[in-house]
């Protein structure tokens, strides 16, 4: 009897290790705090006591400022936000991850980009690449997850034309912008 129990424990341990090894490891990167809107986090402040309605619909009472333009034909809010715990995000297989690991969620669909981001070829890294503090920007630091397409921005001014008039008394560069050449 004891021998069978012992073997079963061993098998159980083995199965547990096998299972754990199969589960995707959460990689950690030096990311900044996710760029939440003011006062929106933690979500459970409002959602803890609310009823969960998983019916796909257009929200009329809250979060009306969010217009989903990101796979909106096949997806809606609760496909990425975990229905049970709004402080977490939800992977396709149902696992919960927290907001500072949101890159794992994006990486499910955007595989090549995720691979590039992990190495640093996609996205933005600032700080020290060697021997100091560094920051890897999260996907959402640049891309609004609900409307990820970049909006055009105003460019910085062009360089002065070569033959602007040299004015030793000028306090600013405004004079440089005139002239044909």
């Amino acid at each position, binding site marked *: 009897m004891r021998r069978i129990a012992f073997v079963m424990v061993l098998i159980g341990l083995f199965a547990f290790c096998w299972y754990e090894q199969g589960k995707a490891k959460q990689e950690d990167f030096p990311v900044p705090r996710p760029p939440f809107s003011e006062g929106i986090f933690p979500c459970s402040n409002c959602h803890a006591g609310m009823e969960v309605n998983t019916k796909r619909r257009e929200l009329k009472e809250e979060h009306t400022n969010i217009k989903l333009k990101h796979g909106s034909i096949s997806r809606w809010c609760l496909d990425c936000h975990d229905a049970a715990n709004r402080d977490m995000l939800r992977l396709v297989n149902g696992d919960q991850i927290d907001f500072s690991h949101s890159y794992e969620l994006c990486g499910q669909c955007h595989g090549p980009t995720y691979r590039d981001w992990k190495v640093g070829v996609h996205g933005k890294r600032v700080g020290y690449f060697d021997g100091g503090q560094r920051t890897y920007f999260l996907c959402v630091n640049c891309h609004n997850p609900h409307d990820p397409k970049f909006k055009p921005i105003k460019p910085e001014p062009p360089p002065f034309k*070569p*033959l602007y008039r*040299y004015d*030793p008394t000028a306090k600013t560069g405004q004079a440089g912008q005139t002239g044909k*050449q």
Partner: protein
Amino acid sequence: MEAWKFFKRTLVLVAKGRPVYYLWCALLLFVMAVGLWFYVKQMEIGLILTSMRDQVSWGLYIANFTYLVGVAAAAVLLVIPAYVYHFDPIKEIVVLGELFAASSIVMALLFVTVDLGRPDRFWHLMPGIGKLAFPNSLLAWDVIVLNGYLALNVIVPVYILVNSYYEKEPVRSFVVPLILLSIPWAVGIHTVTAFLYNGLAARPFWNASILAPRFLASAFCSGPAMVIIIFQVIRKVSQIKFSDEALFKIAELIAYAMFLNIFLLGAEVFKEYYSNTIHLAPLRYLYEGLHGHRALVPWMWLSLAFNITAFILFLVPSTRKRLPTLNLGAFMIIVGVWIEKGPGFVAPGFIPDPLGEIYEYFPNFSELAISLGVWACGLLVFTLFMKVAIPIVRGDFVHSKYAKDLTKIEPR
């Protein structure tokens, strides 16, 4: 002591002359003073006072430098007939021609100096004391070769003239090797100047093998043309005498050089226009205008017209051997080659610039003033050289031991 006495006597020669001489020197000194004033301002404020910018970083100064190195190299066209072929009419004026080359080199070196941003750091260029990047940098080669040529063209004539002053025969074993050395050296200075443009792969207009031959061909046109004009002026204002045969021979040699120059231009034009790659852009800028920029187009066509007309004038013996048409041709060549080798060479190297931008460079007043100041300086140096050399060559200015009449040391 003897040298000091000689020097003092040359000072006397230089200090006395006809009113036209004083007027000429005063004019030159005035132009030099104006140029110097602008140069001081340029050094104070910075090179921003010129019209040069990052897009066209070399302008009027380097254009004049290129032209004057060519003019200096052309002294060889006098040295070869005189010393190698013993052509007597030219032998009379060859020493003066070498001093002319020396003045040209002085002007060329001055042009480089006014173009430098930090001439106070000139000692960085001295081999041994500074860090001259020889043999990697063609500018380092140019520094050595130009100064060497200046030395040659000062040592040889001064040696000959001083010996003449003492009525001594120059030691042939000393002076003849130097003279013979100056022939390939003259070709060398202009080849090195051509190579300093040629080696830049970044500027396709200059990165053409035709550059060095073309430089030499145009140099052998412009230099002797200046000699023709200047020496006629000298013949008028001083008492030196030389026959017109010398001038006609020089004009004949110019005709051959001009043919080569025009032929090489034709070769360049064919290659660019027929192959029709994007490297056609600078040549198109010169002769047609590029994207609406047409500043140099009339100048280039004028230069071409001048060159071809002068070529014909010099080729046909009847126009070559007549002084009015000879002088007209010489004047046309001086202007035509200056346009071709100055703005018509330096500017299109930078237009369009490596990132495709077009900045039409046109020199402003301060650059013109400084350039004219440098030209005036060179002309003054040449005038002073002539003031001493001509009396020696004529036999008027000799050591008192040999003077036929003591009261005859009256220079003109």
